[in-house]
């Protein structure tokens, strides 16, 4: 059976060359980058190369990149690290209600520790209103954390506004941007984002799971979450997981980011969007301003999980926007104020360059059959 993987925002297939790179580091260049001998030195060179690749992919300096165990750790480090470093200068933090759980739950912990957290809610399209950001940031604010692309809907957030809002408020606030879903998929540079902290992850871009990076602008000081070693300027100590880091760098260096490549994803998206909009009983929750990589839609009356398991019978893998009846409802779609009929039936498809137009046709074909044959709850 053909495998049609349309869940690339959950994770991607590790590219063959990235996997090969990891194997090479594990079996040949296996030294500890901190070791003084030549085995360590060659490992250190690999680490340096990897750091340069990741840094240049977002227009940063190598010294501004700290490798982490992934997006979750990058987000945690940014949020707690900034809050702890600036806690004497204010207690107010501004974020959104649609952040990834690694940001939201970190924020909830900070609330328990006495911080005041403002959660901005989006409009029906899933976007935060820039005016709300401006209004929320005041002189006591120490951190603003906003994602660049929402992981469930693909909605692009007005992050640039946050930087100027901070400037205008003359607050000490740092700006953190969770760019995990945007990384390499939507062109951005540190200069353009004007962010102090940016989180990215390896496995969303055909790198391995277990590695990500946090960009920390030069001159910005945040406190570490871990202690015990000189590595990565003590912000993230511990022996660097070189196989994962180098494999991530390999994936970054070969990621197709040219305009033709972006057009390809755009074409896939447009094709899928057109077919979905022509299908009876489908409501598209991601509007056209969303990232080309993600389309969220609902089939009211069919639970997300049912459609997901139905499609997987044909080798088509998608994501349920929301878990089953007993599970939690999607906090993102809830914050958008969608009807519960739409939330309960939400499905996300997310693309990669490995998908083809034929994949989309097959997916839509099976989706239509499913819509006709699956029994709906009333």
């Amino acid at each position, binding site marked *: 059976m053909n495998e049609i993987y349309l869940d690339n925002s959950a994770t991607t297939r590790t590219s063959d060359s990235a996997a090969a790179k990891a194997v090479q580091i594990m079996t040949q260049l296996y030294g500890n980058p901190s070791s003084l001998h030549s085995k360590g030195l060659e490992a250190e060179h690999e680490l340096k190369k990897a750091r340069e690749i990741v840094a240049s992919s977002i227009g940063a300096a190598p010294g501004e990149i700290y490798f982490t165990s992934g997006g979750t750790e990058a987000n945690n480090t940014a949020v707690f690290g900034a809050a702890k470093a600036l806690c004497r200068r204010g207690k107010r933090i501004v974020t959104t209600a649609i952040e990834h759980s690694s940001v939201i739950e970190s924020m909830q912990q900070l609330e328990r520790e006495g911080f005041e957290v403002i959660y901005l809610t989006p409009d029906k399209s899933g976007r935060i209103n820039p005016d709300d950001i401006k209004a929320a940031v005041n002189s006591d604010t120490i951190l603003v954390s906003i994602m660049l692309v929402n992981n469930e809907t693909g909605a692009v957030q007005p992050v640039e506004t946050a930087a100027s809002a901070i400037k205008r408020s003359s607050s000490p606030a740092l700006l953190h941007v969770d760019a995990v879903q945007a990384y390499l998929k939507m062109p951005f540079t540190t200069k353009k984002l004007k962010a102090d902290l940016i989180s990215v992850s390896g496995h969303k871009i055909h790198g391995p799971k277990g590695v990500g990076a946090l960009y920390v602008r030069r001159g910005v000081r945040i406190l570490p979450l871990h202690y015990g070693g000189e590595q990565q300027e003590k912000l993230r100590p511990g022996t660097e997981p070189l196989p994962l880091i180098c494999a991530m760098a390999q994936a970054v260096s070969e990621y197709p980011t040219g305009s033709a490549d972006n057009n390809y994803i755009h074409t896939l998206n447009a094709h899928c969007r057109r077919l979905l909009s022509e299908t009876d009983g489908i409501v598209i929750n991601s509007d056209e301003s969303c990232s080309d990589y993600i389309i969220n839609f609902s089939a009211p009356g069919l*639970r997300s*999980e*049912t*459609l*997901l*398991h*139905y499609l*997987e*019978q044909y080798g088509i893998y998608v994501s349920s926007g929301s*878990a*089953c*009846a*007993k*599970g*939690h409802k999607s906090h993102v779609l809830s914050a958008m104020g969608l009807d519960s009929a739409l939330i309960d039936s939400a499905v996300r498809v997310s693309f990669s360059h490995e998908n083809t137009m034929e994949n989309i046709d097959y997916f839509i074909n099976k989706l239509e059959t499913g819509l006709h044959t*699956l*029994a709906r*709850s*009333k």
Partner: protein
Amino acid sequence: MKEVILIKLGEIVLKGLNRKNFEDRLIKSLRRRLHKLGSYQVRASQSTITVTPMDDDADMDEAADCVSKVFGIAAFSRACVAEKDIESIKQAAGIYLRERFEEAKSFKVESKRSDKKFPLTSPEISREVGTYLADMYPDVAVDVHNPDAVVTVEIRDTAAYIHCGVIRGAGGIPVGTGGKAAILISGGIDSPVAAYMMAKRGVELTAIHFASPPYTSVRAEEKVAELLRRVSAYSGRLNMYTVPFTKLQEEIRDKCHEEYFTIIMRRFMMMIAQQIAAQNECQALITGESLGQVASQTIGAIACTDEVCTMPVFRPLIGMDKEEIIEISRKIDTFEVSIQPYEDCCTVFTPKHPRTRPVLKNVIAEQKKIDYLPLIEEAVKNARLTEL
């Protein structure tokens, strides 16, 4: 120093002429379960079953945990074995009780002498051992009225045993002495508890699970398998039948009135379960229903469901509150698994307003809208057996 487990029989001793039968079952299940942990000898004599490790490096904590889950055991003790002379007994007690005496503030010694040829009487033994321990642990005082630690010395035919404290067993009667029954298990909190409770009354179990892909997922089935593995720590080995239930559910959904969905579904489940149960020499069905918990668990709904049953249906949770059920599920370690949120076939297509007082005549009329017999036959035929 050799440690053993001394097991006191529970209700079994009341069984009169059947006692031997019950005891043999218990020994068998002890042997089978301990066998997985290593080499142990299990022997009965003088109304006590003794578990003796045959390997020097046996993990007795693990063995005790295993014993604590075997039904038919009221209480047991972990004891050390000594030669039958008073000096050996004293020395063994001194070493064996070190850990316990580091926590205790006071103690007393009790002795039982079933071997009357032993030269000292019980009070003499207690006095000797008590004096020795008091000298060895001067921080622990003798207190015969309200001691922290009660040390027991037992002089039996084969050896002397020293133990300190009785551990409560799982109670009940040995699995297998109560016949065989099939548990209908969905993956929720209740059914594993119901399974546990019937196993406690000596019932050997077979499990039946209804799956409705794609409305339910493979993970839901794996969850049920995991629940059953945990139940099997008490019930002993058990098998699971997974019944493909999608077609029947879709038929009910398409053809019957919404408010009868659940009740007709449950009738079909019973019909299927009954056939699989009979094929496996089961004499009864078990469900985790508790009266009034949900719409299908009213007296009226249960009566309508059971109308299709010729086998007795045991509902050990019928009079229990959810809190009481949860307490047991925590005790048997199934709660955390049960609350994993996967769709199960009972929640697919749940009607908004189910009938709480269904009229049997109407239920049967609705059910007749489906040509269900061939579908039921097909479901039984395609039930898949998993050995856990």
